[in-house]
């Protein structure tokens, strides 16, 4: 896939501003407005915020990244894109997203490598702070190369009454992704983390996450959907019920189209008798009944299977933001080589 195609089809949602970071160069746009700020992570202001929020330690020698701060009362959509365009390049990123109290932000991130670039690597440390009664929707579509290695380390802190919604999609080939964000919730905060992954032959995924329900009345869900056509996918999703009157749910659904290794490990840890934690998982091949049903409608087996996979994906996209599900539907409808 070339860059233009990606930017047009995967990443461009019409959100403004559009922050693009290529390899380890700095951010292309800095903003200092009443509603929000965007800074290069290495800028003076950027460094101040990193220090103020006591983020994860950044041990990179060379790195790039952004600091986004959304101010109290504001509501902003922001689009970002990280890409690598040199063979063998190791991109190191530190990002910080801060939502002050009583504000809202929707961030759409596309991450990719140029199609002719092999053996690249993307490392990241990401910290997100969602203030009291604020809401952050974080949408991420990954499209790295089939030889790419991807290792983001994300921590999310949600203050009282805050909401964090994450929608994460990997559809194209990639070599390795290890991504297990940790989300910490204070009183009455809520987090829903959804992922839709297409596992290709040769791919190796370790994707899941942890939600710690620290505050009373907080709730969290981790919902993963996997279409497996080879490769290895391990999902380790954990919810820790620490506060009283907390609720957590882990769900993992995998559709085995053609081989592949899928391992779903739901972990529920109750540290309090006033917590309610549930999980459900299903791993299985395409239903023969459904294929036959579509055959009785005159469709051949391959088309029937394709329709069922699309149905599975549509179900997974349900309740995701319109621009995410629409983008995904466009991408999937555009799959030329079938499933």
């Amino acid at each position, binding site marked *: 896939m070339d860059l233009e195609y990606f930017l047009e089809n995967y990443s461009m949602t019409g959100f403004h501003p559009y922050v693009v970071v290529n390899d380890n160069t700095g951010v292309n746009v800095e903003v200092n407005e009443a509603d929000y700020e965007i800074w290069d992570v290495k800028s003076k202001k950027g460094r101040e915020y990193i220090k103020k929020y006591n983020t994860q330690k950044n041990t990179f020698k060379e790195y790039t990244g952004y600091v986004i701060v959304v101010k109290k009362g504001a509501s902003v959509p922001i689009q970002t894109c990280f890409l690598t365009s040199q063979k063998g390049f190791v991109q190191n990123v530190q990002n910080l997203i801060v939502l002050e109290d009583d504000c809202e932000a929707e961030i759409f991130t596309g991450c990719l490598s140029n199609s002719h670039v092999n053996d690249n690597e993307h490392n990241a440390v990401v910290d997100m702070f969602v203030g009291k009664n604020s809401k952050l929707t974080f949408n991420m579509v990954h499209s790295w190369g089939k030889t790419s290695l991807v290792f983001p380390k994300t921590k999310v802190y949600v203050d009282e009454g805050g909401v964090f919604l994450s929608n994460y999609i990997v559809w194209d080939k990639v070599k390795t992704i290890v991504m297990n964000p940790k989300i910490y919730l204070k009183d009455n905060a809520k987090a829903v983390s959804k992922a839709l992954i297409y596992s290709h032959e040769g791919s190796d995924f370790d994707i899941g996450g942890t939600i710690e329900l620290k505050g009373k009345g907080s709730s969290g869900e981790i919902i993963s959907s996997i279409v497996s056509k080879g490769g290895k996918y391990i999902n380790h999703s954990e919810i820790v019920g620490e506060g009283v009157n907390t609720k957590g749910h882990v769900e993992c659904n995998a559709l085995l189209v053609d081989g592949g290794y899928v391992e779903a490990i739901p972990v529920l840890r109750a540290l309090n008798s006033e917590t309610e934690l549930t999980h459900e998982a299903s791993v299985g091949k395409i239903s023969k009944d459904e294929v036959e*049903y579509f*055959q*009785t*409608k005159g469709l*051949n087996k391959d088309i029937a299977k394709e*329709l069922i996979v699309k149905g599975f994906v*549509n179900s997974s996209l349900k309740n995701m933001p319109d621009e995410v599900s629409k983008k995904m539907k466009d991408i999937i409808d555009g799959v030329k080589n079938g499933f």
Partner: protein
Amino acid sequence: MLEIQKFTVKKQEKELLKNINLSVSKNEGIVVFGPNGGGKSTFFKSIMGVGDFQVSGKVTFNKKNILNLDIEKKVQLGINYMYQTAPLVKGVELSNLLALMKEFKGSLEELYEEMREPLKSLDMEYLFDREINVGLSGGEVKRSELLTLSLLKDSKMYLLDEPDSGVDIENVKRLGNFINTMVKGKSYMIVTHSGEILKYLNPDRGIVMINGELVFEGDVNEILNEVRRNGYSNFSKKEL
């Protein structure tokens, strides 16, 4: 048209249908009667190739052996099947299926326009963009299934498994009239328990299937009256 000879069907070594012999002519309508578990649904499914059955014997359609053909090849030959209980398919909207069946290249809005008339005739415009059979009532499922059935091209024979079950009286009339139009000039076999839908059709004869055997063949009304009076206890092999 459809010739069935010494047709035996097993599932995991259990014999479900035994030595069925039946001939269905062009434009002929046959009602298949029988108690629950008698083998009626298995009969249709195994002709169609739906489900995991071991079949033996001979089944030809217009002299072509169809026993081991893929389901969609049978559909292409003109044999169309309506499930008693159609599966629900999460995430796939009826409109997606209609577009594929009609090989429609336009937008969904254009497809809706094109489908407006048949959708309306089954009072199911609102089901156009719903997931297939998900959360629908029994009657809605039947209407939806009939709609897609009616779209299949070059139909020559319909196998209709209880199209009226779970359907209220008013809708039985609607479905009956729809089926009557659909099967005009075609052959069909229909399973019904209530017989209500037969008011709107004009079948030629009835057959009774009990314990996987075809035990009786005769006039539809006679069979229906006997079933209503005495159930299936008086039907036996010797009456054939």
